């Protein structure tokens, strides 16, 4: 009988000693974490896409709580819905933001930009870009090796084997900007989704002179400036032989699309039957075009 009691006693005493040690250690190394972080992390999408610029959703939640408001921070993947939820938790008003989508600004399909050489090296755009111009000879165009598609965490990008160009699935794209960062040539841009998802953009990044650009691709922007002259709103700037349409100014009249001699300007999601709406005359308060450098990758809002 005494054996049993001594065993109980010994175990109880050691248990009490360890409990005390653990208590003091826990006090000494206590980490105080705001429970709000967990709540914010809960409402974030949890894809860890890195579109916000942080290491992942948890890091973003920490940044939100640390800052206490949403100024300068936004979750492109979650969009307005998540912003509203986070704002409710933080007790601030969410920033109103136009929904955006990734746009591939290259029209160098296999037919337009025929391959002059054959590349069988590492299937990685960043590597091919460091070696040479690419199969078509255009040093600005899409290499078609799919770094953007691999970077996409939402399965919204794929390289079309027929054209050799990436295709954006607009229903899946959350405009996180991962593809924009992955493209070594800055071809992909985040643009406002636009009214009824309609967009007009220059599908080319070639800054060479017209003749040189045409040599490598039949659908290249040759920098002729016709579109800029046609645009009634001054939304188009031509710099370094390359036109750029500012999506904040563009009113989707599509006059430039008709004017472009190479078909470098693309209009997407318009109804097939073209009923040209009467273009409203430029009003006095129409914003003046800002000089937008064509090389600018508009990753921000």
């Amino acid at each position: 009988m005494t054996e049993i009691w001594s065993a109980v006693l010994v175990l109880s005493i050691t248990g009490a000693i360890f409990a005390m040690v653990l208590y003091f250690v826990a006090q000494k190394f206590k980490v105080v974490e705001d429970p709000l972080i967990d709540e914010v992390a809960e409402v974030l999408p949890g894809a860890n896409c890195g579109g916000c610029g942080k290491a992942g959703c948890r890091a973003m939640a920490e940044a939100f709580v640390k800052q206490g408001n949403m100024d300068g921070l936004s979750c492109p993947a979650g969009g307005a819905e998540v912003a509203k939820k986070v704002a409710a938790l933080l007790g601030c008003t969410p920033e109103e933001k136009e929904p955006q989508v990734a746009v591939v600004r290259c029209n160098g399909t296999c037919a337009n930009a025929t391959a002059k050489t054959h590349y069988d090296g590492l299937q990685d755009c960043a590597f091919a870009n460091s070696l040479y111009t690419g199969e078509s000879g255009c040093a600005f165009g899409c290499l078609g090796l799919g770094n953007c598609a691999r970077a996409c965490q939402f399965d919204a990008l794929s390289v079309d084997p027929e054209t050799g160009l990436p295709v954006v699935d607009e229903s899946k794209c959350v405009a996180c900007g991962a593809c924009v960062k992955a493209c070594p040539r800055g071809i992909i841009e985040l643009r406002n989704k636009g009214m009824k998802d309609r967009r007009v953009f220059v599908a080319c990044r070639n800054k060479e002179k017209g003749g040189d650009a045409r040599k490598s691709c039949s659908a290249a922007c040759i920098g002729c400036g016709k579109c800029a002259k046609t645009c009634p709103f001054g939304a188009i700037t031509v710099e370094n032989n390359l036109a750029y349409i500012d999506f904040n100014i563009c009113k989707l009249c599509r006059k430039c699309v008709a004017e472009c001699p190479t078909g470098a300007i693309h209009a997407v999601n318009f109804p097939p039957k073209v009923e040209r709406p009467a273009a409203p005359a430029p009003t006095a308060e129409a914003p003046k075009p800002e000089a937008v450098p064509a090389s600018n990758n508009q990753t921000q809002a």
Partner: protein
Amino acid sequence: MKTFAMGGVHPEENKISTAAVIEEFPLPKTAVILMNQHLGAPATPCVAKGDKVKVGQLIGKAEAFMCANVHSPFSGTVAKVETCKDAFGLTKPAIYITVEGDEWEESIDRTPDIKRECSLEPKEIVDKLKEMGVVGLGGATFPTHIKYSIAPDKKAEYLIINAVECEPYLTSDHRVMMEHAEEICIGVSILRKALGVPNAYIGIENNKPEPIAVMKAMAAKFEGIIVEPLKVKYPQGAEKQLINAITGRRVPSGKLPIDVGCVVSNVGTAYAVYEAIQKNKPLIENILTVTGKKLQAQHNYHVRFGTTYNDIIAHAMGTLPETTGKVISGGPMMGKAVSNLDGPTTKGASSVLVIDESEATRATESNCIRCGKCMNACPMGLEPYLFSSLVKNRRIEEAGAHNILDCIECGCCFFSCPANKPLLDEIRLGKNLYRGILMAKKK
């Protein structure tokens, strides 16, 4: 017989143009002279459209530290100063020259007499090399005057002349040793004087018995020049491997040859040094091997920079053989495929290789089986298979911690891989990305 300690492979030698005597390449009608033909910043053009230039006239001035002067290899009129597409289609600043006649600068000694005496002081030699735009002709085109300006806290003990020519196919060094042995030895003596070292070692692989004999006979007439035959193994011509083979020393990671007291120059550079110092001739031409298994005739040419690859092909073979898969500038192991044949040759060009389709295509890649052949082959003691997966998953900093920047890009790993994995491509990409990270950190 000496060779380097670690790794290495034995590619098929294919030196089929060893017997072709160096020929003068005819002048083209127009030429494009790139402003960055060397490692570092491009030179600044100092002529304008419409200017008349002579052969050897300065047309691009070195303004940055890491830069070399560019001289006109042709006489004629400057057609335009603009950009051009180089052999890889990339846009570079260049000077276009319409070639008219062949009028040389008066200061250049064009007589065939060999000038043996050099009375210049070491400092004057380096300054003259800078003026003459001499760069290393082994492939990396490192400005020679920078290499021979030794920092005061460093001391050179060995001058090593690289005549290994371990790349398959290439024979320009072989030919220049056969035909210009005395000039090379004078050039080596000048470099020895510039460094102030007692001995210069000329490393030659023993698959070149004729040049070894010729150079040995010639070196005996000079003081302090030792010809060192080496056991054949690729990449013996790589700077660090050659130092290891000849001196037994190892260049530590991230250090330069001068840190172990060595300076290495190519044998072609030694010849260019002779011409620059003794004959006042700037670096305007190089010896190019034009070779390929399917070609009727093999050639070694004296080609002036700015001649386009198309000009060379048209003169050497008319048109490319129908089954040509690739045209490579440089050796088959380390050279680059030329994607734009309208592009001009540069100071670094050493050959035009016409590779047949059957040899040009890569075999299908399969999975790594961890056999370790790449590690055994790597002459730098690196782990290529590891870099491959780290780079693929973009874990670049880890690759950096495993010394990815030590890779000399010799291609032994890719050559030995039974799974045909593009190991070198991945490592090159990793190096580029890691350099980017380091640059960003510096800022």
